[in-house]
Every structure is written in C-alpha cells, then in structure tokens.
C-alpha cells in the first residue's frame, strides 16, 4: 500500500478525524500526519531529503503529531498539504475596493474574474503551502495535493475584523469570488499534483462553510489532546464530517477510492 505524508497546520485536526471515519479496511493509502501551527511551516528547510526546522516549537509539534521532529520526504509516495495559509480571506481582502460583475455598487471598481484570479495566484505563491510544495518537489517527484483552509462559517459576518466577508456576501458576488479562489489555487498547485477544492456540499452561499460542519470543530490542538473544548467563537475550524468529505475529495482527485 502506498504511503502519503500529510503535513498541515491546525486544520489537520479535522482532516485526521475525518480520515478516522473512513473504514480502515477500505482505505487505499496509509497516511502519516505531521502538524505545526499556522504558517510556521514556512520556517522549515530541506537538507539531504529531510524537511527540518531550527525552531524547537516546530520540532516539538512535528514530534507530538507525527512521531518525529523532522520528515524524511523520500519515504513517501505522495503528499497532502493541509491549510498552509491557503484561505479565501486573502482573496476577500483584495476586493475591499473592488467588485465583480454583476455588482455595480458606486465607489467600487469593477475587476474581471480572470484578473482577480491572476492577482490572487501571485499571493498564493507567498504562502506556506507554496513553499512546502517547492521544497518537497525539490526532493521527490511524488505528487502533492493541497487542501485549502475551509471557508469561514457564517458567524464570521458578526466579526468586525473581517468586514470584507459580509461585504462580498451582501454585494452578491460570492459565487464569482469563490470561483476565482478555486481557479487560482487550481492553477497554482496543479503543477505539483493537484488542488482539492472544498466540496460544494460543504459550502453555503458559495463563500461560507455550512454550519453543520462547524459543530464541534476539531483543531490540531484538540487532535493532540491539548484543548478538548471547542471554542464557541471558532468560525475557522471544522469538524470530522467536513474532514471526511475533504479526504474523499482528495482520494477522488488522486485517482484512489475508498468504499463508504
């Protein structure tokens, strides 16, 4: 059986929990999980085929989640990168002064979806997922699949520090913006293996994750039994049901299949 290395940030918790929901006997690939918070994995480097960091926190995190303080990239048949900063919010911020057709709100400049896609694609190339993809591909030809951070749930619209999410929703351009996000990520990561877009059935109004997937969210800290209580205001992390759907989408994109 092939072995895949799953590397990610806090969202790896939901992904691992989701994977655990898939019957072991039907799993077409063995997975090994390594996690480190936020964009910290940008502080890694490759030496002799091994992904390392001089940061002790990162070493501890990799050890605690994956059983080793560093990752021998040559051991794996494929890679799954989870999160890595690939989030819709970065694209959402770009639309603060702009809009997409058919919106025609005065004071907002019209931009085309292709231009937005291209602009966002350049942003993606500054994220941890990109850096890791480049580092891994310098060692091995094994395919790399990137899973984005999930869309926020709708409670984000109550958060004053992310007003652009509410604006995009109210302008009625969520569908176009989400399409630009998916297209930019697809164009960026297809060269390494593929981009696993968040499944349609988990989305609500195009740019949000449906609330049922936000119930009892699983972050990496919970996965590591460091914080068992889900936070009430966590509109970021999702649950194991979401994780299962993402992993099934990954298997489908990778040409692997798992029975239900």
């Amino acid at each position, binding site marked *: 059986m092939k072995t895949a290395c799953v590397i990610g940030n806090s969202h790896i918790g939901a992904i691992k929990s989701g994977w655990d929901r898939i019957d072991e006997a039907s799993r077409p690939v063995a997975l090994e999980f390594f996690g480190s918070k936020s964009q910290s994995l940008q502080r890694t480097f490759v030496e002799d085929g091994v992904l390392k960091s001089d940061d002790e926190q990162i070493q501890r995190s990799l050890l605690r989640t994956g059983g080793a303080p560093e990752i021998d990239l040559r051991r794996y048949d494929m890679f799954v990168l989870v999160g890595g900063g690939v989030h819709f919010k970065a694209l959402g911020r770009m639309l603060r002064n702009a809009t997409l057709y058919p919106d025609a709100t005065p004071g907002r400049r019209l931009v085309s979806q292709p*231009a937005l896609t291209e602009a966002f694609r350049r942003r993606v190339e500054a994220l941890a997922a990109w850096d890791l993809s480049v580092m891994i591909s310098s060692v091995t030809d094994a395919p790399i699949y990137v899973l984005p951070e999930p869309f926020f749930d709708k409670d984000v619209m109550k958060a004053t520090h992310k007003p652009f999410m509410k604006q995009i929703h109210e302008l009625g351009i969520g569908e176009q913006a989400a399409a630009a996000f998916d297209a930019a990520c697809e164009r960026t990561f297809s060269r390494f293996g593929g981009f696993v877009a968040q499944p349609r059935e988990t989305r609500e109004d195009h740019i949000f994750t449906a609330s049922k997937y936000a119930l009892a969210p699983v972050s990496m800290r919970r996965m590591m039994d460091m914080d068992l209580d889900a936070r009430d205001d966590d509109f970021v992390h999702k649950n194991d049901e979401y994780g299962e759907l993402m992993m099934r989408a990954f298997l489908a994109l990778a040409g692997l299949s798992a029975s239900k």
Partner: protein
Amino acid sequence: MTTPYADLPPERYWRSGVADVHATGLSGLYQKKFDIARKDRIATAGSCFAQHVARHLTKHDFNVLDAETSPLDLPDEVARRFGYRIYSGRYGNLYTARQLLQLLKDAASGTVRPEDVWEKNGRFYDGLRPSVEPDGLASPEEVMAHRREHLGFVDELFSNVDVLIFTLGLTEAWVHRASGAVYPICPGVIAGAYDPAEHAFKNFEFDEILADMLEVNEILKARNGNFRMMVTVSPVPLTATASGDHVLAATTFSKSTLRAVAGSLRNRCDNIDYFPSYEIITSPSSRGMFYEPNLRSVTEIGVETVMKTLLSQHAGDKPAEAAPKERPAPEKDDAPRKAKRGGGKKKKDDLVCEEILLEAFAR
C-alpha cells in the same frame, strides 16, 4: 547675388545633416514648438510604439496620468497583461486617428454598442480593446459593464489633460458597416468572426485622418484652453496589409500619409507639435540598425535615441541627463494620477500589440 541656401546651418544639408552624422547623433532634427513641463498632466495613446514614449516619460518623472489603475495590487507584468499601466487609460492600442476620435465621443456620450462585443469559445471580448482581457469575460453584458466603467475613466482623463502625446500607427482598419465603429484589429483574429456583410476594410485617406485629428483637437481644446498635442508617427511597418498591395508599398503609403497628416497638423495648429521619432528610426543614416532582425520591432537603442532627442527639448525643470526616479505607489482614490510603471529596462517584447497577431496568418 546670394541664394536662400547660402549660410544655412549644417542640418539643412543632407551630407552634413544626415550622411556624415551617426544615426544616434542627428542634431537639430527637432525644435520644440511649446514646452512640456514635468507638472503638465500628460496622456499617452496610440499605436504600440507609443508604449515606449509613455514608459520613458514616466521613468523621467513626467506627470504621465494613469486614470484607470487596477484596484488590485497587481505585479507590473500581470497588470500589463490585463491592459493596465500601458497608457493613460485602459484603452489598448489606438492605431488610427478614427479610433481616438471614436473613443473620445463614446466616452463623452457613454455609448456602448452591443455589436462591438466579440465571442470566442464561450468567452466574450471588447472588440474595441480585445487584448485587455486576454481570457475574455463570462457574458456580453459583463463586457458592456466593463466598457461603461472604462469610458467613465476615459472621459475623466480627457477632462484633466494638458498634453496628449499620440502616435499615429496605421491607416488601415476594419469597420463595422452599420455603426461605423472602427476596430483595432480585424474581427476573427483575437475573437469574434469576420463577416464581409458586417465588416469592411477601410484604408483611411489623408483628408479623413486630418479631419479626425482636427476634431480631436477641437474637442480637447474646448475642455482645456491650454490643451496641447504632440503627434508622432510610428516607425513600425505593417505586419500585414489587406489593401491588395505589397506590404512594403502599403507600409510606405500608410506611413507617408500619416507623416503628411502630422506635418499638416503641426503647420495648421499652434497647439500641435510633431516629434520626428519616425525620421530618427527610419533615416538612411541608421542603415537599419534601429530595427530588430524582423525589420519591424524597434531596438532599445532606437528607443533610447528617440527619447534622448525628445528629452533634449523637453527636460522640464530638470536637465535631460537627470537620473530616472522611481515613483511612489499611486494613491487609492480614483482620480487620474501619475502612472506607476515598472522602472528599469524592458525587453523589446514587452510591447502589447494586437497587430503582430496577424503574422500567424502568414503562409
């Protein structure tokens, strides 16, 4: 008895003015008719060669307007691919005088014609500037919405301009028979479909071009009493001709006509000057050295020579040799502002030219 030819300065004689002078050092070829100061609000437009002028003036700290910046923070290369930061508006190349006049009138009236939307593989393009959205847009309605917004910026631009630098590029064009709309490229090359019943070839004559340019001048003078225009003629030969003539003969006709119009404009209008970039590049003294091996594209040395000549007369309040200065990032409001274009040297292929696509049709 002496003659009018006695005691003329050296540049009035072919041997001392051209034959014995290196092509990079022609002197006295251009004497400005009026000043262009660095604070003057400058708009640039025209054929591909005009992109060189815009870029170099910006680099030398002239107040080249950019009325249609991208609200997205695009790297220069991406911005240019989407038609931003090339000219003072996102209008693409205006190869003919009629295109310029049409743009001004459409902008003033807010005219958007459905028949100017072209389709290709399910995507839709603005036939009047088909290269600004290289991937097209999702629907004809979206194209028209973008064009409406664009025309608003163009109208604002030309309400705020002191100097227009316009490069006349072609006499040949394709027009929509019913509306008279003039396109920068034949329908079907980038998008759309050529239909002889709908589209016609047009080779503009001297009188028509002169009349169009005079009308442009009147429109802009009415908006700004201090309006001035500098016209140039692109030295870039035609990629292809639909005139039925050999492409060399067609090029000569086209450039000669445009050059004659430019000269006539200069002679007739106090506020119009002609800058001889055409002569600098095509002069026999250059022996073709200012052209790339394809004998069309102008080399960077050629462009530098042109700009050196221009800046020798229009140094503004600084000496022409002053080091180019990088611009600060543009402000975020929507008023026309100084352009922010990539500094440093550009490769020759940086120009955005639809016309070159015609080469793909060569057998």
